[in-house]
């Protein structure tokens, strides 16, 4: 990357900081309205109890648990693109890691709220800490999620330090308030010295290695919420790997959508190129194929034997009342998008985006098909349960879906949308030596590397 391109990169990364326009406000307003409706629905539920949902004695888990798994799954995009690509030293990751890590933090914050929404007595959530039972999957849940949340925030923050320093220097004292404070304070006095670089790389390296097992643990724990019960369709040994893979798949798909959106809105076409979408599509293809394999393995094992508890669930999924949803997911949400990205052809970005939308929708549907038939299947000689979500659950879902782009927009109002430091790291360009105070800054229309 030549110097000019490098400058352009920095400029583009910083361009939208602190800037809002009409378009920004319109979109933000629409998203805020959705979030507000969701928040109102939650307050409505807090006042009246969970009776306002479609949950009942047979189907006692529904949208909230589905969404919890779904949104935490989306946060895996950050773990993969940032951590795994970093560890495998994939050079193309640099322009997209900031977006991916930001998505991870926002999605995780949204997903981590859902267990609270689902509680019958949220005012007693402190009991979880005071009387924590180590044998309970719910305990594993809050421990894993809280640890992963903190780790994601740290993993987002550490590579951000040098970029915050650049912001501090670019905007100087022209910025007051929260932004100014965050640049000055959170950049920790970054100067770009070799010593600091070394420390930062060490810290990021530790987090990159740590966040992968943490991410795996979070979704494994979510899977075990279901798998340690004896319900049909739940009590499966492959659940933890299945959930992890599903999370990675939905995470990568969401990353594709997010980078496509910000690329268009912030004019990053020169840096987030077709190559990124093609590579992410390959990742989508690999993960999707793996997911198909896991699903086939599970259904084959269960279907061949058709035990008393699993038989009815499989029947309902393949040919019964849940068959429309299942085949929509399998064909429209898994097979079709993979075919779409596998075939060579034009419009890789458009195809990747369409495929991602299908995958995300399909993954939500799959979580629905895991939770609801498992709960509805009769354990005793009675009828199947019925679940009809109410406006409260739908509103909260819509609100949380809207909260993610809103959160990202707010986040990248403050921070550079592309990681400057990571690009330098990838390109092997070192930070120029610190400029000594007092010496006049060379006037530069194009030469930045002293």
């Amino acid at each position, binding site marked *: 990357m030549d110097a000019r391109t490098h400058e352009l990169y920095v400029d583009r990364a910083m361009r939208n900081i602190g800037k809002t326009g009409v378009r920004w406000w319109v979109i933000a307003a629409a998203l805020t309205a959705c979030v507000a409706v969701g928040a109102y629905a939650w307050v409505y539920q807090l006042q009246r*109890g*969970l*009776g306002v*949902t479609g*949950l*009942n*004695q*047979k189907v*006692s*888990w529904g949208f909230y648990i589905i969404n919890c798994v779904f949104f935490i799954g989306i946060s895996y995009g950050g773990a993969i693109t940032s951590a795994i690509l970093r560890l495998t030293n994939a050079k193309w990751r640099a322009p997209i890691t900031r977006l991916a890590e930001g998505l991870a933090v926002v999605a995780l914050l949204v997903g981590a709220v859902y*267990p609270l929404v*689902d*509680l*019958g*007595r*949220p005012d*007693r*959530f402190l*009991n*979880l*800490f*005071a*009387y*924590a*039972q*180590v*044998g*309970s*999957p*719910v*305990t594993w849940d*809050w*421990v894993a999620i*809280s640890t992963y949340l*903190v780790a994601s925030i740290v993993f987002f923050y550490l590579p951000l330090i040098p970029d915050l320093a650049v912001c501090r220097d670019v905007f100087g004292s022209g910025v007051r308030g929260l932004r100014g404070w965050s640049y*000055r*304070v*959170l950049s*920790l*006095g970054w100067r770009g010295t070799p010593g600091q670089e070394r420390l930062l790389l060490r810290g990021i390296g530790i987090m990159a290695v740590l966040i992968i097992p943490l991410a795996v643990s979070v979704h494994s724990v979510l899977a075990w*919420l*279901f798998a*340690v*019960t*004896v*319900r049909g369709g739940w009590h499966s040994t492959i659940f933890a790997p299945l959930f992890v893979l599903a999370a990675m798949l939905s995470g990568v798909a969401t990353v594709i959508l997010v980078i496509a959106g910000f690329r268009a809105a912030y004019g990053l076409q020169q840096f987030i190129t077709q190559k990124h979408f093609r590579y992410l599509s390959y990742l989508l293809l690999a993960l999707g194929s793996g997911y198909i394999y896991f699903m086939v393995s599970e259904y084959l094992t269960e279907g061949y034997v058709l035990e008393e508890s699993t038989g009815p669930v499989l029947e309902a999924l393949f040919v019964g009342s849940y068959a429309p949803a299942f085949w929509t997911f399998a064909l429209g949400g898994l097979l079709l998008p993979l075919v779409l990205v596998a075939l060579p052809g034009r419009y890789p970005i458009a195809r990747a985006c369409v495929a991602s939308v299908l995958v995300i929708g399909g993954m939500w549907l799959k979580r629905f098909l895991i939770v609801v038939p498992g*709960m509805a299947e009769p*354990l*005793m*000689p*009675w009828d199947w349960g019925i679940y009809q979500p109410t406006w409260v659950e739908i509103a909260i879902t819509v609100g949380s879906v809207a909260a993610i782009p809103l959160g990202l927009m707010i986040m990248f109002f403050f921070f550079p949308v592309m990681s400057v430091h990571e690009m330098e790291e990838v390109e092997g360009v070192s930070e120029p030596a610190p400029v000594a105070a007092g010496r006049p800054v060379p006037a530069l229309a194009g030469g930045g590397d002293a």
Partner: protein
Amino acid sequence: MLDKVSRRHVLAGLGTGAMAAGFVPIAFEAAGASHPTTTSAPQKDRQWAMVIDMRKCDGCKKCTVACQETHHLPANFEWIKVFQVKDKQGREYFMPRPCFQCENAPCLRVCPVAATYRAKDGVVLVDQDRCIGCRMCMAACPYGARYFNYVDPPVPDKPYAKPTPEFPVSQQKGTVGKCMFCVHYTDGGKLPACVEACNMLALYIGDLVEDVATNGVETVRLSQFLRENDAFRYREELNTGPRVYYIAGHGQDLGY
């Protein structure tokens, strides 16, 4: 200078935060604070069990009604639920299902706050003051024996003292309730509501330690009664160790 001071504050704050957060897992060791016992301790060392004689059950559901009246439950709360079963040969019979008070209870294992616990006499109780309403126990129970208070429970017409796990009346919204073998009655020498109410004398309450069971009129030697009548437990293969035994009567599928 200002730079340095704020940095130090930030670092101190972050450090304290991280340290504090790191100690959260130590809460594990604070787990399982014991539940206060509120009723008089029973005099004998009992291990309660029930025997349900399906030869006699006629599906009248007086047991369900008696339980609902005793505990002031809404109509859809059937702590003892009578199933009308049609077996594979097409024969119909009735199967009352109270909570099985499993010895190896899945609901006990998965409760994150130990709101559900096992009393000394083997009965599984729910402390509705501690329950957070996560409904993990409902997902884990293989018998659908737990009921969640989605809405405000009915208010009893006469005032009761503060609800206890042994007598959770009235129920609390947002928590889980279930059959507790009427320990509030048995501790005081009375029969459980369902056993008392059964006209067909199909429900027996028994003690595994003293090896005796009674339906209020007839008293039998428990182990002998079970042996002679080929008693079985429902879905024994789940290995939950239920304390409720069934006596099949109409040639129904015994599951083995």
